[in-house]
């Protein structure tokens, strides 16, 4: 491998990891403005145009505040938890192809962090790592509210991961591959000339289950039981302040973006739209924009839902996960299996 290859590889891996945190800044602003819009109030509007500077101001505040640690906390784990959260959030994006492949100077460069054969399995593996951040934070804080948040989170994430994985298994089955590029490739073209061959159409059920489970996996309302403020103060991050708290916040927004990106890729054709055949760098940039637009749409849904729906009770949460989502996901899988068997038999 030449030096150029190394550089390209490095860029492929690092670029998304570096850019994602940057996107978090406007996202916080968007969330607050969105909340304000839904609640019919102005929201942050003083710092900069449209209050855009508010996000930057918040960031500066986070970095400069004093970071307090409870005396009885477990020091190592207390510090480890936010790091794990950020690490897990940032590494998940690695397997998502976010633009079409470009060919420059005889090199074929797939725009993806790491094109793994076990693609989506990697995603779930890293996602399952993120639960440790919450559980550790809850335990290390030595605070009963935080501990409750940690316990809730562990059970919640395991339960919803099942539904999410089973829903995604439908896509894997349809594509006969774990790799996300393969999954995008199978969604090219149209049915009957107008309907895009996106997975969302045959697998509407799977999509719904996946997307709902994504809310639970990212601890967003209506599934934010681990940090439910009326009951648990702030849940697992009650004892966290300053940038340590900021890290959790950042991880959450990155997770929202990744969840949206993965939803886009699995069910909405990723960077592709029917009739669009990207070539070269311009094509790649266009496809990147398409991907960004789709992802942004789902991020918007995340924000919209957060400020619209009330929180579930814990028993309701478990009931939905095990008695509604999982059976539906299984139904979806069964349907896709039947569909695939029918296709194979032809």
């Amino acid at each position, binding site marked *: 491998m030449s030096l150029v290859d190394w550089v390209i590889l490095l860029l492929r891996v690092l670029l998304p990891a570096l850019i994602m945190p940057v996107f978090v800044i406007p996202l916080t602003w968007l969330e607050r403005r969105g909340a304000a819009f839904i609640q019919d109030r102005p929201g942050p509007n003083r710092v900069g145009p449209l209050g855009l500077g508010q996000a930057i101001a918040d960031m500066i505040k986070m970095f400069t505040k004093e970071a307090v640690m409870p005396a009885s906390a477990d020091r190592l784990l207390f510090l480890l938890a936010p790091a794990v959260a950020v690490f897990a959030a940032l590494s998940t994006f690695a397997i998502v192809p976010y633009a079409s492949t470009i060919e420059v100077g005889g090199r074929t460069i797939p725009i993806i962090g790491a094109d793994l054969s076990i693609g989506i399995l990697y995603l779930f593996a890293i996602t399952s790592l993120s639960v440790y951040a919450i559980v550790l934070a809850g335990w290390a804080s030595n605070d009963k509210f935080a501990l409750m948040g940690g316990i809730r989170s*562990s059970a919640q994430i395991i339960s919803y991961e099942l539904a999410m994985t089973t829903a995604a298994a439908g896509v894997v089955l349809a594509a006969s591959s774990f790799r996300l590029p393969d999954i995008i490739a199978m969604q090219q073209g149209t049915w009957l000339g107008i309907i895009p061959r996106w997975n969302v159409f045959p697998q509407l059920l799977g999509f719904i289950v996946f997307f709902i489970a994504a809310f639970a996996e990212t601890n967003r309302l209506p599934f934010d039981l681990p940090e439910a403020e009326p009951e648990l103060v702030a849940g697992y991050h009650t004892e966290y302040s300053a940038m340590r708290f900021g890290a959790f916040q950042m991880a959450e927004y990155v997770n929202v973006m990744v969840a949206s990106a993965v939803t886009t890729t699995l069910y909405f054709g990723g960077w592709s739209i029917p009739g669009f055949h990207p070539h070269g760098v311009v094509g790649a940039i266009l496809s990147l924009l398409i991907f960004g637009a789709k992802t942004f749409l789902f991020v918007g849904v995340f924000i919209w839902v957060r400020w619209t729906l009330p929180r579930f009770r814990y028993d309701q949460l478990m009931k939905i996960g095990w008695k509604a989502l999982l059976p539906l996901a299984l139904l979806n899988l069964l349907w896709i299996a039947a569909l695939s068997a029918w296709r194979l038999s032809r």
Partner: protein
Amino acid sequence: MSAGRLAFDAFALVAVVFAGLMVAGKDPIKSVLALVVSFFALAATYVMVLSPFIAGLQVIVYAGAILVLFLFVIMLLNVGREKPDGSRRPIQTVLGSLSVAVFATLLLGMLRGSGARLPPQAEAVGPEQLPDPAAIARLLFSDYLLHFEAVSVLLLAALVGAFVLARREEAP
């Protein structure tokens, strides 16, 4: 020493060291976390022995589910540190340590030389095919279909069993 071997040995060492920490630790939570690290390192070694699919499963199932379940149970039961035994008959500890030492010596001694003489396999596939999840899937759903189904029944039984065991006795 090649880079591949170096990386493998490094991860293996991490796995062993954290396994040791898990066994030695007094705090169950820390033990679980040590085992998490150990399992992640093991997953890395799995990738290096050409089994990325298993590595993914390892992380998802072991680190992502089983050990989280352990954490959950530890937190739920609020299991504290191990208290001193107070037993005046240390036969279990002494005999146990001794036998473990003998066993470890025997095992490692046996394993050190065993890798060299492997019989060649008739249907062996190349190292480029080994990591392919599709090949494993094909085997699982053809030659090992019965086993696969049996395991799924087992899992269902375990699900029901776990539910029955952990359910609170309620007045009917």
